[in-house]
């Protein structure tokens, strides 16, 4: 009985310690991100890996998402003879919801997993300890630039996803299904307000922070062995997906 209680107690303290560690990791990374000297060359490098290298997959998924929305939107709106609202419905869905969420998923799969694997390997091969022993703060060197880069790159990737998605919906709706081009854009112009763009912008920034925070944390504290790296990579992707959806719910409920 005492052994069981001891195990429960240890599990509870481990969980609380883990939560404390993940939040203090974020606080340290954010604090160090804005403390000089700024690692500009690292920020630029990570904008390339997070932003530029994710561009093709984000553009492609945006294009097909927009085309699917064109078909599904047309099918639904036709029930009410409201096909002319296709542009408005597609743009609202993309700007407020699908653009930020799906581009965050793409970046998690494309870059977040790579971050966790890279940092996990660095932990396993003592490279993180080497930085620490050279009196170079590994969080400032490895994590903070990635956080700043993701805060800058995510809104841009989301904007590209939105624009290409709208183009995909236009191709399907106007060129394939015969919706009037004028009504497609007029509906969009009439119903999209600044708040829609703003809410998508806020979501994309916060998703960028979540992805980098979780993926870097999982990699940084990965057990120093091959299975530790693979476990960290898997956990980082799954946890990022879940956290993106949970945070999306909260933001949507607040910003609706």
């Amino acid at each position: 009985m005492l052994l069981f209680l001891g195990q429960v107690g240890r599990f509870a303290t481990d969980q609380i310690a883990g939560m404390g560690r993940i939040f203090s990791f974020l606080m340290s990374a954010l604090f160090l991100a804005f403390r000089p000297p700024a690692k500009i060359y690292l920020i630029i490098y990570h904008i390339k890996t997070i932003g530029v290298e994710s561009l093709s997959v984000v553009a492609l998924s945006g294009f097909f998402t927009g085309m699917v929305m064109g078909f599904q939107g047309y099918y639904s709106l036709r029930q009410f003879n409201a096909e002319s609202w296709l542009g408005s419905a597609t743009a609202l869905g993309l700007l407020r919801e699908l653009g930020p969420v799906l581009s965050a998923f793409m970046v998690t799969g494309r870059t977040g997993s790579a971050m966790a694997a890279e940092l996990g390997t660095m932990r396993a091969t003592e490279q993180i300890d080497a930085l620490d022993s050279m009196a170079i703060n590994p969080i400032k060197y490895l994590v903070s630039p990635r956080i700043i880069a993701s805060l800058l790159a995510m809104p841009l990737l989301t904007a590209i996803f939105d624009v290409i998605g709208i183009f995909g919906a236009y191709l399907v709706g106007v060129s394939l299904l015969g919706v009037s081009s004028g009504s497609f854009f007029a509906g969009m112009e009439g119903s999209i307000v600044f708040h829609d763009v703003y809410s998508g912008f806020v979501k994309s920034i916060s998703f960028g922070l979540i992805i980098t925070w979780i993926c870097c944390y999982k990699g940084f504290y990965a057990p120093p062995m091959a299975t530790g790296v693979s476990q960290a990579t898997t956990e980082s992707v799954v946890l990022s997906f879940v956290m993106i959806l949970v945070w999306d719910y909260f933001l949507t409920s607040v910003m609706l």
Partner: protein
Amino acid sequence: MIRVTNLHKSFRSQHVLKGVNLEFATGKITTIVGTSGCGKTVLLRHLNALLRPDEGEVFVDGVDIAKLPQKELYQIRAKFGVLFQGAALLDSMTVFDNVAFPLREKTKSKEPEIKKKVEERLEQVGLGEMGRKLPAELSGGMKKRAGLARALIMDPEIVLFDEPTTGLDPVLATSIHQLIARTHTTFGFTGVLVSHTIPQVFGISDYIAMLADGVIKELSPPEVFCASKNPVVQQFIQGKTEGPIQVL
């Protein structure tokens, strides 16, 4: 000068260090020997506070580094160079950039100055032509040499070597030992070496410390160490399975 007093460290239920007391002579090489898994690397990692003790103190030039906040700790760490077991070179950088890395990050040296110093260090460890290679393109011995060049680039007062010859053939191991001895003569640092490659390591060490059962069993110059009557030391030197050291 480094002094360790009553150092205890546990990982969950495993009590690894059980009250280590040890003083490292300034300007000399002290080698910590012991069986695999006895806690040599754990002890070494306490010397520059990569690990913090559960109990006890680690004094570096009279300052207890176990309790220092990060800013002060980083000032102390500037006195250290570390050669890790796998060299721990940053694999995204070339050998040259790895060796130049501490200079670029921690000093305001100009690039021509850095270039001159890095080339000099690479030459000293026999890697003069290897600066442009990536760590993945180097052999095990070359990685250790590059790691040593990086460890020495800031002219440290203390250099920690974590099993510098593990995984190397006897010829390469001897060449690394000779390199350590040569650089020690050139730079005059205080060296702390963790190894179990005896008797080869005796030739470059001023003192040998034997770690067993979580405590230091013997600290003496190599010739005295070899003649020690301590049964733990004798069992270790002779590689016997019978004796006070429990073999699983």
